[in-house]
């Protein structure tokens, strides 16, 4: 099956720092989503980005489908950004999301 690899697995930042999270996938996909799972377990949609670049406040994401990777940029990080960031993809001809293992982010004040 498809492999979804996220890096780094863990990241500790000082408040105000910037970071880049990466997601590599091994097959062509129809859909790619980024989620933030907060400490209470809720999965919050960040981006639906099968290709191209999108921005939402301090967050932005870029997916290069032909090279099978996506990047999530977090600028001016805040303690509330702490949690786990998941990348998830939907294969061509499929509809289920396949998740990566996640990046655990801790932002220190």
């Amino acid at each position, binding site marked *: 099956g498809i492999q979804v690899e996220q890096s780094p697995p863990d990241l500790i930042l000082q408040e105000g720092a910037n970071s880049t999270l990466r997601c590599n996938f091994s097959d062509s996909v129809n859909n790619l989503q980024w989620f933030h799972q907060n400490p209470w377990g809720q999965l919050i949609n960040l981006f639906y980005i099968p290709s191209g670049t999108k921005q939402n406040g301090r967050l932005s994401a870029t997916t290069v489908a032909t090279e099978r990777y996506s990047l999530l940029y977090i600028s001016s990080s805040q303690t509330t950004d702490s949690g786990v960031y998941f990348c998830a993809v939907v294969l061509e001809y499929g509809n289920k*999301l396949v998740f990566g293992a996640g990046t655990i982010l801790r932002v220190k004040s």
Partner: protein
Amino acid sequence: AAGVIQSPRHLIKEKRETATLKCYPIPRHDTVYWYQQGPGQDPQFLISFYEKMQSDKGSIPDRFSAQQFSDYHSELNMSSLELGDSALYFCASSLVGAEQYFGPGTRLTVT
């Protein structure tokens, strides 16, 4: 905007008991998905329904069954519960092929 609703939010059961989880998708969404997230793991796909018909199936144990009703709500039934079934269970909904939106999850603890 309306979101996906799941109930109950927390559930404690003993081994060999039965549990029923409910999901109410976002209005007008035609596809419902169930995912299971074990402690420290990523969510894993269980099963999905498109217009009330099962559309895809993942690694769902035979002890689990699910269905989608005429009002589009879905239920996940889990029987002969085992300690390893303790997990966070998410329901998600979408228009077919589009962005999936997740509910808050049901945290199941089996003792």
